C-alpha cells in the first residue's frame, strides 16, 4: 500500500518532497538514471497523496459522556427540527 509506505512520513512531507523533486527535474540536466529515480519517487509520492486525499471515510460519529462513539448519519435531520 502506497499510503503506508514507510519512506513517506506524512502528507505534508510527501508534498514537500514532491515539490523538491519537480524543482530538481526541471532545473538540471541530470544523468538519465538519476532523473528516472526521481521520477519514480515522484510517481510514488503523488500516488500516496491522492490515496490520502480519498482515504477518509464519509462518516459522522457522536462521542457521548462515557467516551463511546456512535455513528449518526441522520444528525443533520435531527438538528433541522
Amino acid at each position: 500500500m502506497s499510503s503506508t509506505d514507510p519512506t513517506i512520513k506524512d502528507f505534508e512531507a510527501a508534498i514537500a518532497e514532491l515539490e523538491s523533486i519537480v524543482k530538481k527535474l526541471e532545473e538540471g540536466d541530470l544523468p538519465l538514471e538519476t532523473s528516472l529515480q526521481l521520477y519514480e519517487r515522484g510517481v510514488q509520492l503523488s500516488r500516496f497523496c491522492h490515496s490520502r486525499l480519498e482515504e477518509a471515510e464519509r462518516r459522522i460519529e457522536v462521542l457521548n459522556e462515557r467516551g463511546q462513539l456512535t455513528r449518526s448519519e441522520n444528525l443533520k435531520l435531527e438538528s433541522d427540527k
Partner: protein
Amino acid sequence: MSSLFDQPFEEPRPEPAAAPARAPARRILTVSDLNARIRVLLEEQFIEVWVEGELSNSKVWNKTGHMYFTLKDATAQVRGVMFRSALRTLRFTPQDGLRVIARGRVSVYDQKGEYQLVCEHLEPEGLGALQLAFEQLKQRLQAAGLFDPRRKRPLPALPRKIGVVTSLDGAAVRDIIQVLRRRYPNAHIVIRPTRVQGDGAALDIARAIAAIGRVPEVDVVIVGRGGGSIEDLWAFNEEVVARAIAGCPVPTISAVGHETDVTIADFVADLRAPTPSAAAEMVVARKDDFCAHIDRIAHRVEAAMTARLHRSESRLRALETRSGVMRGQVAARQRSYQSLWRALESFDLRRRLGRVRTRLVAADARLTGASDRSRHRADGRLRATAARLEALSPLAVLGRGYAVCWNADRTAVIRDAARVADGDRVRVTLARGELDCHVIDRSHD
C-alpha cells in the same frame, strides 16, 4: 438611614462662626409639606441631568411596563425609574452590570420620602461588569502566556478526523456539517455534544474539549456555537474553557457567534474563525487546493521527465549521424535508453489514469447532488489533468512499435523473462489491441 440625620440635608450657610445663632421662628411643617417643598427644590434645580453609573437591581413591572433600577458607582447609589414610554425607545435591553449614562430629571417620591432619577434616556457605556471581567481574565491569561503566537499550531494539511464541540440543538452543528459535506465529501466528523450556555456550560465545554482531543486520529477541533447575546456567549469567556483549549493536544479553531463577537476562546485557540461555517471552510478549503496542487506537480514531473528523454533521444540521433566510429558507444546508449523507456512504461500510468477517472465519476455524481461552483472548477481541473496524463502516457510510444507485456491480471509489467514460467498467461498491449498469450519458451539475455 442614619446618614440622613448625621449630615445636614442642605449645605450649611456660610455664616460667621462667631455670630450667635438667632432662634428662627417656629414653623411646623407636615411631612407632606416637607416632601413637597423638597420636591420643588429638587425639580427646579435638576431639570435635566446626565448621570453615569452601573445599572443594578433593574426590574420591569409587568403591570405598568415601567422599569425601576438602581444606578451606582463604587461608593454611592441612587434609585431611578424609567417609564414605559421612554423605555420603548431604547434599542438595547438594559441589563444589570451595564455601565450607562442616564439622562433625566430628579424628583421625589412623596410616599417614601425618597428622591429618584426619572430617566428619559439611557446609553450603554462600555459593557459594565461583564466587560470588566472579560478584560481581567484576558490580562491574566495573557500574562500566563496563553495567547503567545508561538503557541499557535498550524492546522493539519489534511485532517484525518475533524472534531466538533458544540450543541446538537444549535444552528452551528448544522452549518458545520453542511459546509464540510459540500467541500470535503469524504470528511470523517466526530461530534462531542455539549451545552453552550447557562450554568455549568463552561465546565461542560471544557470536558468536551478534553474528551475529543483524546479520540484517535482527530487532528483538529472546532469549538463554538451560533450567535447570541453577550450573556449567551459568556461560557466561551470563562477561564476553564480557555485552559481546556490551551491543553488540547491537537490544534483548535474557535468559532463563537458572529464575526463581531470576540471571546477569550478566540485568543487562546490556534485559529479564530468568524463563524462556525467559516471554521468548517478553514478545515477543508485545503482539499481542493491540494488536489489541484498535486496534479500540477505530477504533471510537471511528467513533463520534465518526457523532455529529459526527448533530449537524450535527439542527442542519440545526432551522435548516430555524426560518426560511425562511435557506433559501439551509440548502441550502448541506445540500449540504456530503451531500458529506461520500458521502466517508465512500467509505472503503469493506466492504473493512475483509472484512478483519476474514478475520481471524475465520483465528482460527477456529487455534482448532480449539489451544483457548486467550486466543485465545477475542481471537476474542470480533473478533466484537464486526465487529458494531460493521457497525452503524456508513455503508452503512446506503442505507436512506434514497442509492446508492453503484462501479467495475466494486468497488475504488473513483466520486465524479466525469469519472472514468468512456461505455460503462464500473459497479456501484451500493442498500439492497437491486446493479445492474450501463453508462454511457450523463455530465454535470458
